């Protein structure tokens, strides 16, 4: 397989993943049903995972699926189920009266930074290097336990705190009855 073919395949892959991200992202923000929005998010997550793969970072891609798709999105699903917010949650009827103002503001909020940054990215882009060899797990591990040990530990503490907090809040809910 020639270098050129691989290059082309990479572009095709990029296009595919971009499409996933776009479609999923749109579904995530536009869909009236929260569960469908979540499905959109998951689609996006897969697209991002694909981009990680394109950048030859499979570990990150799998972690993306393991953590985001396997855990975070399931948690969000739980939140949807427990709050019982049925379709039309985005306020379908409300949205109609707001559509001019609110949607316009939202588009503005999204587009302003997007346009500025896109111009910056395109204009001031440094040259891309060729893809570096895959970072091995061992390297990552050394990094995490070496210079980044503090961040690593902090994340552990944050996770622990989040868990404890969730448990405490959950118990408060039970007691409230």
């Amino acid at each position, binding site marked *: 397989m020639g270098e050129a073919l691989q290059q082309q395949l990479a572009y095709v892959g990029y296009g595919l993943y971009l499409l996933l991200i776009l479609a999923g992202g749109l579904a995530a923000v536009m869909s009236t049903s929260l*569960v469908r929005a979540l499905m959109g998010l998951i689609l996006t997550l897969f697209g991002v995972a694909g981009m990680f793969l394109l950048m030859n970072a499979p570990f990150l891609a799998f972690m993306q699926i393991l953590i985001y798709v396997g855990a975070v999105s399931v948690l969000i699903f739980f939140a949807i189920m427990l709050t*019982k917010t*049925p*379709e039309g949650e985005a306020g379908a009827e409300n949205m109609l009266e707001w559509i001019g103002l609110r949607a316009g503001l939202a588009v503005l909020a999204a587009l302003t930074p997007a346009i500025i940054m896109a111009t910056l990215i395109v204009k001031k882009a440094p040259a891309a290097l060729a893809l570096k060899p895959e970072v091995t797990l061992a390297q990552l591990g050394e990094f995490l336990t070496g210079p980044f040990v503090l961040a690593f530990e902090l994340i552990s503490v944050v996770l622990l705190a989040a868990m404890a907090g969730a448990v405490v809040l959950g118990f408060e809910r039970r007691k409230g*009855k």
Partner: protein
Amino acid sequence: MPHDAMSKLVGDYYTTHFSPDPTSEGDTLILNLGPQHPSTHGVLRVVVEMDGEYIRRSEPVLGYIHRMHEKMGEVKTYLQYLPNMGRVDYLHALAWNWAYVGAVEKLMGIKVPPRAEYIRTITCELNRISSHLLWWGAYILDLGGITPIFYAFADRERIMDILQRVTGARLTYCYYRFGGVSADIDDDFIKETREFLQHFKTRLPIYHGLVTGNVILRGRCEDIGVLPVEMCRRYGATGPVLRGSGVAYDTRRFEPYSVYDQLEFDVPVGKNGDAMDRYDVRMAEMVQSVRIIEQALDALPDGPHVSPDLPDRFIPDKGEVYFAVEGARGKIGVYILSDGTAKPYRLKLRSPSFSNLHVFAELAQGTLLADAISIMGSLDLVIPEIDR
């Protein structure tokens, strides 16, 4: 989703009139268990209000298999009503046979020959074992164990073969007659019964090993559905449900009928009144039934199997009578009010499942759904008996 749409969809009287718990804060789920549900054994329906997996309130809804047995008793002659008795509780049909036949005999003063009494005891106890076996299998099935019911049915099949030999039926027996039984037992019957008892004694340890000792089953039964004696008294629970709570009340022992006062047997009782105790009581009762059958077979006298001096027509004098026997599910009572005609003026059946069922609503309160299923199974309900 679903919730709002669903609350609009349900329109049944019992669901819409199921008054929500005043203390509930609105995020509860009204769930219909039954009438088609794998664990409601036939057509019982229970409306439950659930908070997550916990049951807030529950309410049994009866009447899906109501067949007007009591009313039928008023339009049929005494003899014609007899086959109905096998269909009230089809799992322990002979006990119902006995209760009705005994009541009429008491009303008309008919003497039963001793051989018939022993035959009745043997067949009724065999039927009790088969009923308990079915309960055992079905209960474990409710708890998710699928295999035991097949073993139970293999043994039940042998009991049914034995009973078919004399009764001609395999489930809804109509075997007892006023003044005796409809057919005499022969040597083959006795031989087969003895063989079965030997076989059954070897099977029981297997059952205990497979199920009783199993830690998962114990986890599902122990401390589940603890039924205090006071509550039994309030609801009139009888049978293994009552004995599981530690009250050694058994009609066979405390209001002895037939030849039960001449036979030796224990009345097994539980301690805490949880589902495991009810389970243990039933398992021990099967052993006692085996004991009773063995003694009865040994003591079986010769003689006629049906009283020779029976009246031509069964028309009792005016009067009323109540006769109770111990069924597999509890105390079976038949009350007859006679106005001197060929048909009863009023016939009332006291079915144990009816009383036992109503314990469920209170027991299930605040338990997990899975526990409620376990409790319901441990009460050993036969739904047609509830809706007489």
